[in-house]
């Protein structure tokens, strides 16, 4: 009750300031508030601009140039030629496809597993803290460290998983399909808990009374889940998916350790990186960087505009 009042007041207040800006000279209070707002945001804004905005612009500029560090003399403006080169290149599209497969498959599994784990963490009557602590281990562990664990687990002779009679004799990390499966497995293991935590926050906003009411209305447990819980959790699910999809598209660490892009497992990040650092082709590498950024932006746009995901931190994401 009190909360609600306080909030509504909070909401009115920002509007109130706007008027003053338009017409009247600001009072001392408002003026100092604005000044303080800018002042407090300044350091963060400066760092973000210097470290990202400038490199982004620089990246776009590089992408319009022929610039290979191995042949620095041939540097020159080539317009969109790099884009044409990349977009007509089969390697780029293969990397694109690989990335999408990894993203879609791992996120799909994570959603189902994450929902299950979220349910366990939310509802367990036994050792709630224990389960949550356990779930945080994969989330917190350094990806590279975990990836080496997976690599050795699947290395013939060395690994306990490679020993399993199911695929005895073969080396899973040397074939495309099994390599992909292992990469996806490593991704799923590491990030399912994160997904589960985001979903758990969504579960927490479904009032217990609603479940009881639905039960009184004759809904079975499954019906309660699909007709009551899921619809109410939709915003949470969308946010969790947005976070994870954007993260999965950037997949790098696991692939680097497990295959380093060998046997047709090179993702966009790996391909871009190889062109940049190993290949030293800044022009092409930057073009790929920009294209990757565009890919990510399109995905985010689709989520926010088409599915109506509340952008994290946006005005309407606050408490409601």
């Amino acid at each position: 009750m009190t909360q609600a009042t306080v909030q509504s007041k909070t909401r009115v207040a920002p509007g109130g300031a706007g008027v003053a800006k338009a017409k009247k000279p600001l009072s001392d209070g408002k003026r100092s508030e604005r000044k303080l707002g800018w002042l407090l945001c300044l350091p963060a804004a400066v760092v973000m601009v210097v470290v990202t905005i400038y490199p982004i612009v620089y990246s776009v500029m590089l992408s319009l140039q022929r610039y290979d560090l191995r042949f620095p003399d041939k540097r020159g403006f080539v317009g969109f030629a790099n884009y044409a080169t990349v977009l007509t290149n089969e390697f780029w599209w293969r990397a694109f496809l690989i990335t999408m497969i990894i993203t879609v498959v791992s996120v799909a599994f994570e959603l189902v597993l994450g929902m299950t784990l979220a349910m366990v963490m939310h509802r367990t009557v036994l050792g709630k803290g224990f389960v949550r602590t356990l779930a945080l281990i994969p989330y917190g562990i350094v990806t590279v460290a975990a990836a080496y664990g997976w690599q050795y687990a699947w290395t013939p002779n060395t690994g306990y998983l490679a020993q399993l009679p199911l695929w005895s004799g073969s080396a899973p990390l040397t074939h495309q399909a099994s390599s992909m499966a292992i990469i996806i497995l490593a991704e799923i293991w590491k990030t399912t808990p994160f997904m589960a935590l985001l979903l758990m926050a969504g579960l927490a906003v479904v009032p217990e009374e609603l479940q009881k009411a639905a039960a009184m209305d004759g809904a079975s447990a499954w019906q309660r889940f699909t007709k009551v819980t899921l619809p109410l959790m939709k915003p949470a699910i969308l946010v969790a998916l947005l976070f994870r999809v954007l993260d999965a598209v950037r997949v790098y660490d696991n692939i680097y350790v497990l295959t380093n892009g060998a046997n047709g497992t090179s993702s966009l990040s790996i391909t871009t990186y190889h062109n940049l650092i190993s290949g030293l082709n800044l022009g092409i590498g930057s073009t790929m960087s920009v294209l990757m950024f565009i890919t990510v932006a399109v995905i985010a746009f689709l989520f926010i505009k088409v599915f109506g995901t509340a952008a994290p931190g946006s005005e309407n994401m606050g408490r409601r």
Partner: protein
Amino acid sequence: MAVVTTRQKASWSVANTIVALYALIPVLWILSLSLKEKSTFTDGHFIPRGWTFQNFVDIFQVGGFTRPLLNSIGIAVIATFVAIVIGTFAAYAIARLDFPGKKLMLGASLLIAMFPQVSLVTPMFQVERSIGLFNTWPGLILPYITFTLPLTIYTLSSFLREIPWELEKAAKMDGATPFQAFRQVIVPLAMPGVVTTAILAFIQCWNDFVFAISLTSTNSARTAPAAIAFFTGASQFEDPTGSIAAAAIVITIPIIIFVLIFQRRIVSGLTSGAVKG
């Protein structure tokens, strides 16, 4: 809550056990590898037959892991500290104050949060080389601050929003300047959120790999995860398995400690920023 029946207990025990196996087996496997004697790496057993701490001794004495570990700790701590300080300022402004440009600030943070780090590697590589930041601590601290800032700003501003708004009005009525209201009322109440956010930011910095391998070339600034990737074993002809596993365990230990101590906070931090709609 109803009394927990034995059956419920049993079924939840099973569920909890599955979660435990899920979370622990891969970690225990690395631990097992790190404790195996060199001759038994290829026996494929989950539980080591011969136990040794030699791998741990080796990575510090022969493998030169000390320096990368110190780099990792120093860089992550400094980056986290700076990100928290400037992130707290920005989060306070966004959660509490009214000023034009707020949306821009949030939008820019979101942009950076979803930005593929690899896309930044080239230009940063170029820029850092030309201004001498390449392969230095600040050369990594800067991108780390930047990429933890969105997390910091979002998580903290959602924590700050939980603080009753009227308290600040009350402080103003009690004669406080905006800064006094911030320092004496908001900061003490925000501390738990700040600590939580700092842990999350630290984990993020600790975890980074892309920047670490791209923006460093020697052990003078290379962090632990990157160093592991460059492990070749104690000598050139030796299998690095034991060293890599031992190093992986070493960098996992701080995470485990954090998780054990701050489980509640990490959970609340991860869930607070993301889902409120």
